[in-house]
């Protein structure tokens, strides 16, 4: 019997292409490119101008920052619905501290270098609250963050009596403007990528989301991990509040409405499993850009509220359904 000689297969271009395409993030990237192309054709080029592209990146970076935090939550199979509540509260607090108007709660305007840390710390404190309720009392994160969202809005209204706050210091405008906001977004995402991929905390997050029982059995403090992801998410929500305040140079209780939906949609489109333990930060960034492109195109094409709501709802449900069907196929 002749011996069968196994020859190593040569690495063909086709093989490389297949591997790249099989990678999840490549699919998301291609979807992003295709979306930009299709929308460019539909809008007859008005969405693909350089200035509009810059605008998309700017808009996405505020929502993207919140999506990075949300990704931590969803990786542990939790949700944070309180993003806009926490963000708006940070926004109203910070702007009411910095304004030179009569709405100032301190009686004198403070500098952004004082106000921004306060905004972030207060936001993180709210994350600590929901994180503690979820991890220590084992309450469903959905309800807890829904309640915290509500309370956050209540506090935001309370700070200025629902009054919009204007007249913020000039030096504050830089954070939400063009070079700075995307830089902040991409650096936050890069830090998050590093934390998730190269630290033991990242591993603990994935383990907690993948299988909390086995994570617990292998010595991970599951409760602390759960609590910290809510703090991270709230911190990111607070940062989104900072960026949004700076971008509009005003504090308004309406400014961040719906950002939790956009952040969940970004994370889901970015390939993070809603059941925890699966997904990566590059996908989330791409997902945030996809949502940004969709939002922007709907604005540029003067689509009314009706179309926006329907498209967003369909995108969220469609992305999750696609994720589930794809995994079922395996």
């Amino acid at each position, binding site marked *: 019997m002749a011996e069968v000689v196994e020859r190593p297969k040569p690495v063909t271009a086709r093989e490389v292409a297949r591997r790249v395409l099989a990678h999840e993030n490549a699919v998301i990237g291609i979807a992003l490119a295709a979306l930009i192309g299709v929308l460019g054709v539909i809008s007859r080029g008005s969405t693909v101008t350089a200035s509009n592209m810059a605008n998309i990146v700017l808009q996405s970076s505020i929502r993207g920052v919140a999506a990075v935090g949300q990704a931590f939550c969803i990786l542990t199979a939790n*949700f944070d619905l309180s993003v806009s509540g926490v963000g708006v509260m940070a926004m109203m607090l910070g702007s009411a501290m910095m304004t030179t108007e009569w709405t100032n709660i301190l009686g004198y305007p403070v500098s952004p270098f004082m106000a921004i840390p306060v905004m972030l710390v207060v936001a993180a404190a709210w994350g600590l609250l929901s994180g503690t*309720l979820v991890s220590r*009392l*084992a*309450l*469903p994160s*959905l*309800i*807890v963050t*829904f*309640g*915290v*969202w*509500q*309370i956050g*809005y*209540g*506090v*935001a*209204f*309370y700070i200025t*009596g*629902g009054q919009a706050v204007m007249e913020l210091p000039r030096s504050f405008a830089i954070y939400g403007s063009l070079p700075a906001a995307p830089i902040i977004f991409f650096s936050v995402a890069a830090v998050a990528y590093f934390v998730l991929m190269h630290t033991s905390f990242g591993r603990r997050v994935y383990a907690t989301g993948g299988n909390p029982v086995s994570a617990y059995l292998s010595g991970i403090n599951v409760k602390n991990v759960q609590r910290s992801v809510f703090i991270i998410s709230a911190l990111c929500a607070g940062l989104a509040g900072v960026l949004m305040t700076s971008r509009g140079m005003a504090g308004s209780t309406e400014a961040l409405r719906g950002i939790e*939906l956009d952040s*969940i949609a970004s994370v*889901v489109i970015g390939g993070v499993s*809603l059941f925890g333990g699966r997904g990566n930060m590059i996908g989330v960034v791409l997902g945030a850009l996809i949502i940004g492109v969709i939002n922007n195109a709907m604005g540029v094409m003067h689509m*009314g*509220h*009706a*179309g*926006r*709501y*329907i*498209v*967003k*709802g*369909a995108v*969220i*449900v469609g992305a*999750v*359904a696609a994720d*589930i*069907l794809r995994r*079922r196929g395996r």
Partner: protein
Amino acid sequence: MAEVVERLKSFIDRAKDIARRVIGHENATLGIVLAAIMGGMAVATGLKSIRISNMKMVLVTGSTMGVAAIGQMFVILTAGIDLSVAGMAFGTSALGSAMMTTQLWQNILGYPAPIWVGIPAMLALGAGLGLISGIFVSRVGVPPFIATLGMWQIAHGVGFLITGGLTLRRMVDPLPFFGQGWVAQAFIPGRPAGFPVAGIIWILVGVVAYFVLHHTNYARAVYATGGNPVMAWLSGINVRNTRLSVYIISAMLATLGGLIRTSRVMSVSFASFGFLELQSIAAAVIGGVSLFGGRGTVVGVVLGALIIAVIMNGMSILGADPFIESTVLGVLMITAVAIDYWRRGGR
């Protein structure tokens, strides 16, 4: 003498036992809490809140939430959640009012449709949208929270599509009867007396739901699906169809709630139903429905909705700011879930 003492003792013991059982029953606790809150509100508002006219008002304003909460309960009993309630109520009310408004330039048909066309159309739209979220949950396996969150957006969009963002007013004549009518009006025209019709609708929905959840096989399917879906499936219950049906029920009851509010305030705008999903969830949870499924009663949910309605009513009499209302609702909800957790024995 000793015999009398003995008999007295046994009588006291029996009374104690009955009292203990009544108080030990979950719904009795809720009733006591409701009474206490009503008492507190009465003191705080200088007895304004317990006037008969105001109590009727609580029933009328609370009925939208109360009806929606009963629908929400069906979903939560199967361990799901319906976040689309407010969107659903808005979308279907927008359709109904756009068909039934007498302001012809806003009417999508060009003439005001009679209520026996408009109301079934609303319920059909609600059932259709509920069917879609039900299919996504039961057949595709999308988590209920995402499916209904998306459906909230879609139904809200449908509402915007129909109203164009405007406020619709002036509905055809018999419609106000459902939201602002009084029972006596049905017999003696123009006499605003007796019991509010909206309250009657709430009670009727409650009675039907009570019957369905206590005396039918369907109830067993709903509770079993929520309690342990695998077990339910193994004992021959069609878990998928049960899950599908509860979203349709919730959507239709949200529609009914929307109908009551539309006919009460005689106008529909996108802001009409803010926080309805939150209120309905809070009512169900306060009423003792476990968010993990399989546990809860209709009576409890009605009491839970009454508690929220009384609190909201009392705060508006006291002239509380909207921020306090929003905060109180948030705190109430988290507290109710925490109580549910302790009741489950720290599981």
